[in-house]
């Protein structure tokens, strides 16, 4: 027996999002932080009108269910996340869809595993020096020797690109063995 008339069924939307963080984030910590951000921003009443549910999360990409009338609120709650369990992180909405299937097909590509382990390579420049933590395309996260470099932003790593290290040459990047 159906519990509700079809016209009374809540209309849902599925938000595909990406978590950009300095270290690996777990799903239970993430949903705790999302609920905390939502309650903090909209109160218990706002959270009751827009019950969020984390459908899936693989460490970087995830799917969140919300009410169709509160998409902007959910975006704002996700955007107001500053850190997850003390790890600096940011949640970016990739897209919104009406079904889990279409949201997955459109916005969640196959997972590519990113390692956050230091590979031991170092960058020694006049201005900055430190260990390379993570390389993704042109992007490089660097653990600086001097912690004062990241003082203002609460971040642990410096964000650089291979362009910063090349010194204007495409074939030299400032590291010992090239990137």
């Amino acid at each position: 027996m159906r519990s509700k008339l079809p016209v009374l069924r809540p209309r849902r939307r599925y938000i595909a999002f990406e978590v950009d963080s300095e270290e690996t984030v777990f799903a239970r910590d993430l949903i705790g932080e999302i609920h905390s951000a939502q309650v903090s921003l909209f109160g218990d009443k706002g959270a009751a009108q827009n019950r969020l549910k984390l459908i899936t999360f693989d460490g970087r990409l995830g799917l969140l269910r919300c009410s169709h009338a509160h998409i902007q609120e959910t975006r704002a709650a996700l955007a107001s996340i500053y850190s997850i369990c003390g790890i600096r992180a940011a949640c970016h909405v990739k897209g919104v869809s009406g079904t889990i299937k279409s949201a997955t097909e459109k916005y969640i590509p196959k997972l590519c595993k990113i390692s956050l382990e230091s590979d031991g390579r170092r960058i020694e420049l006049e201005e900055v020096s430190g260990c390379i933590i993570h390389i993704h395309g042109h992007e490089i996260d660097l653990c600086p020797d001097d912690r004062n470099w990241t003082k203002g932003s609460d971040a642990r790593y410096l964000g650089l690109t291979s362009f910063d290290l090349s010194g204007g040459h495409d074939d030299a990047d400032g590291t010992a063995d090239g990137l």
Partner: protein
Amino acid sequence: MSFYECLKALPEGSDSASRLALAAKHLGYQGIVVCNAEPEKTFWPRAVSNVKGIDVAFGVQVNAANPRLLKSRISFLRGRFPFILVHASSDEVIRAACEDPSVDVLVPADEARYPLGIASAKAAKQNQVAVGFNLSPLIRFRGSSRSRWLDIQRRNIELARKFDLSMIITTNARSHLDLRSPRDLMAMAEVAGFEPSEARAALKLPERLLALNKRNWLGPGVELL
């Protein structure tokens, strides 16, 4: 749709200008304005030319303790940079910035205890100074400090509407983790009290200011052709 964001790069932030440009491009921005307080110390500004598909402009942020210092700093920087953002922490500096037509954007400090005054708003309208809304406290603060900040922003928005001031939304990002996509920023701006159309226009304003400042202005409303 050309959305722009004002941010800070190494050494005042933790990311280089090129990394911020890559992150902003990934999030859907068409341009960024790097507003460091000491732009000559920016880490490898030439590297941004390698990041294709996004405009990167180098502006300057002015932090002055009193109106005299503010005026001298602005007259020194106006000819050198296409975008001047004043970060004002006291009422005197806010008033002086509003009365200076060389200022592009005035951003009251996060810890400001009072909203803008009517006299400042009138002066800002007369001198075409835009009011910047830094949304980073909405991300960083929680609880009573955030509700106090939201109250001040609501009153500032009401004043800006009444005097028809131009508005800018920024997160003043210091790292790629502080950046938010334009649509997320618009959603946050709606929480702070903006109308959706106002938020959209506010994200587009830096591009318009940069284009205006490329032209040769002799004074407010007087252009040398």
